[in-house]
């Protein structure tokens, strides 16, 4: 029934029409793809597994870039205090940061979309409860949340993901609700209602596909937001475990050495973090601009 090849063609055509003529956005997309590939392939291409404490040696600590390690390898970007190769640490940190953000954003968005749809379709107390919960979340500091999660569930990457999910869902629920409410004004929803179609089917088959676009458009931004949030939490010391540093934790570790001239520990992960988020946001901006009806006609220039 569904012609996948055709869908793929349409998709690639759409990607082409979004990006053609926008060199910065293309650069962002390519950069992002490189980052994702690096993250995926890190265990195979990184010179060292920085999470394996066995092979780290503090005698290799704090070496500047291009130094030789005790085992004869070269630390292209230097090492940190524990003898971690910064290049490897950045690759693994990228992997962890991206993983955490991807998982948190996808789960958080899914939850947010479902709650937003429920709020829009059910109305009444369901809507009140969901939307008040959104309000509550907005006036709740992320750091306290992270600390609470840490206390209740213990430390670990999964706990950070939980904390980030809680950070993500609310705005998505709000957006989905308003988009779904707008969609519900349309006559095809009335048509479905007078045809006695059950409300959960209306929700999933009619509302969901038609009101999700504004949420999807925000996903890349949520992704970069989650990466930044994870970095900030790690920086404040309530993030990922210290033995498995993400980009944020690497920066935090290196931050201690910034004044002492051991710049490489903090600067490299910092640059990668900024580039990563920048790439995502450049792409996100372009996607949003493309979807903005007010820009569309002038965009064809």
């Amino acid at each position, binding site marked *: 029934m569904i012609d996948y090849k055709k869908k793929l063609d349409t998709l690639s055509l759409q990607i082409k029409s979004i990006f053609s003529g926008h060199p910065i956005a293309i650069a962002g997309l390519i950069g992002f793809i490189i980052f994702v590939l690096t993250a995926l392939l890190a265990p195979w291409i990184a010179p060292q597994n920085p999470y394996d404490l066995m092979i780290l040696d503090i005698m290799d600590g704090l070496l500047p870039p291009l130094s030789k390690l005790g085992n004869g390898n070269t630390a292209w970007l230097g090492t940190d205090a524990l003898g971690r190769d910064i290049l490897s640490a950045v690759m693994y940190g990228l992997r962890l940061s991206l993983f955490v953000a991807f998982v948190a954003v996808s789960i958080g968005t899914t939850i947010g979309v479902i709650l937003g749809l429920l709020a829009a379709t059910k109305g009444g107390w369901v809507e009140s409860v969901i939307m008040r919960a959104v309000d509550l979340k907005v006036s709740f500091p992320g750091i306290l949340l992270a600390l609470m999660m840490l206390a209740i569930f213990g430390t670990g990457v999964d706990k950070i993901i939980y904390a980030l999910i809680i950070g993500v869902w609310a705005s998505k629920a709000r957006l989905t609700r308003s988009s779904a409410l707008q969609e519900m004004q349309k*006559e095809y929803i009335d*048509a*479905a*209602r*007078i045809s006695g179609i059950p409300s959960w089917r209306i929700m999933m088959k009619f509302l969901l596909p038609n009101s999700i676009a504004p949420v999807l458009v925000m996903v890349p931004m949520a992704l970069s937001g989650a990466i930044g949030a994870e970095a900030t939490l790690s920086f404040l010391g309530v993030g990922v475990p210290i033995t498995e540093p993400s980009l944020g934790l690497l920066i935090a570790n290196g931050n201690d050495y910034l004044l002492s001239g051991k710049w490489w520990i903090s600067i490299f992960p910092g640059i990668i973090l900024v580039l990563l988020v920048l790439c995502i946001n450049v792409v996100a901006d372009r996607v949003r601009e493309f979807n903005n009806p007010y820009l569309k006609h*002038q965009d*064809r220039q």
Partner: protein
Amino acid sequence: MNKSQVLQIKNLTVSYPLDSEKNAELKALDDISINLNAAEIIGIVGESGAGKSTIGKAVLGLLDPPAKMLAGEIKLLGKSMIGLNETQYESLRGNQIGYIYQNPMTALNPVLTIGEQIIEAIEANTNMSGKDSYNFAIHLLERADVSFAKDRLQKYPHQLSGGLCQRIVFAIAIAAKPKLIIADEPTTALDVTVQNSVLQTLIKLSKEEEIAIILITHDIGVVSETCDYVYVLKNGKHIEQGETVEVLEKPKQQYTKSLMASVPLIEKRLHRFSLPNSNSEINSLNLDYLKEERNIEFSSQQAILQIKNISKTFFTPASIFKPSEAFEAVRNVSFSVKRGETVGIVGESGSGKSTIGRMILGLEDLTAGSIIYQGQDLSNISNNEERLKHQLSMQCIFQDPFSSLNPRMTAGENITYGLKIHKLIDANKAKSLAEDLMEIVGLKKEDANKLPHAFSGGERQRIGIARALGYRPDFIFCDEPTSALDVSVQANLLNLLKDLQDQFSLTLLFVSHDLAVIRQMCDKVIVMKDGKALEKGNNDDIFESPQHNYTKSLLDSMPKFSGIATN
């Protein structure tokens, strides 16, 4: 009167690039020439996509960026306007050329007062300032027949009615005594009763101020009442031009002829619009599905639907500046509909006509009263299955072709989705049924697996009709089903509805603001205003000897067009 030439357009061609890579382009205007003298009103008539509005924009130098003027000459008062820069255009706009929009509400800035907006225009185009411009603003409003001009200067646009706002737009347009006004569908957004007087004001201004006016419209009635001379356009191409009476009543071109034949007339009720290719082909199709299991318990003499004293009150949400307020949309309305007949409800916007339909369909709760359908009070059915059966035998054709279909489902899925859910048909027969229904409503069966955006407005409305037919309904509520369509598309669709009604003995409740459409479609007519049913009666009675003053004023304000002269 000095009939000096104000505007001359020669061989104007405007194109939009479609795809920058393939050099494809769409000619919005193709070799158009127009002449216009002072104090003259010319009409530019055409259906959507004809390029009417592009002419106005080209003259004002306001073509939206990707559009390009490829060829031609535009001369204002003998001076060429080609190659003017933005500053030069700015001095022309307002000063020499005024512009009037379709929707006055969006043309006025919502956050500035009327006074600010008029005075700004006066000061930009004259040497007046301070008290002088204030007085002149009052003068202008009075010229545009705005009463209580002084008070209205303090108001914001949303505080005034559409008709008043359009007059204010007129006042702004004549602020600098322009030689030319371009009016783009100036009365389309207004209620019928207001349309006429607004048009009269426009004519008056044209004659008194010696302003030449280009009136861009799709409404043949408006043209026949207003214009001295008319140009007919189709797809950017010039079709026909001439004195208004000549073109409207004795069109020479086939397109113009069919266009005129599509205009619903108010004077007499026709069996069908006399369109080319309008022979019904329904009889030749496979109609078994639609014909089986028809509910024929009710003879045509019995009322299939009885509306008893229904009312509906809405409550506005409370906000910081006002508490929740009640709004009575429908007040104590009663009527009944017999099997096979078409009852029309006519009224202006806000009269409550659609709300009645929504209550019948169960989309809104009743505040008071009862609805009896096929002998049963709908609010008293406790059995879910029975309720569903009743519900499915009532269907609706919606107003907006662009929102009445689920954009993520193909045409066929849109038609059969509900049928499959309720297991009214086998899933494996859905495809062929969808194709049959597509053919019945005059579409190609292979188009059933296209998505809605691939269809035009008229085609979408047909898909909507097919969707309704799929439930084998006894009763269909038609909620302004043609108000968003071009007149020729409307005529075709109305013919189709009539054919279907004959074929399946459908009962229709037809809601419209357009008296002429109601005249053509309905057996009985109900006139509504402010939620109340003012008058009920048979079609001929209402249109030929209306009793209520409001009905009379409605009929009076209809633009007069009596169709192609029949020899």
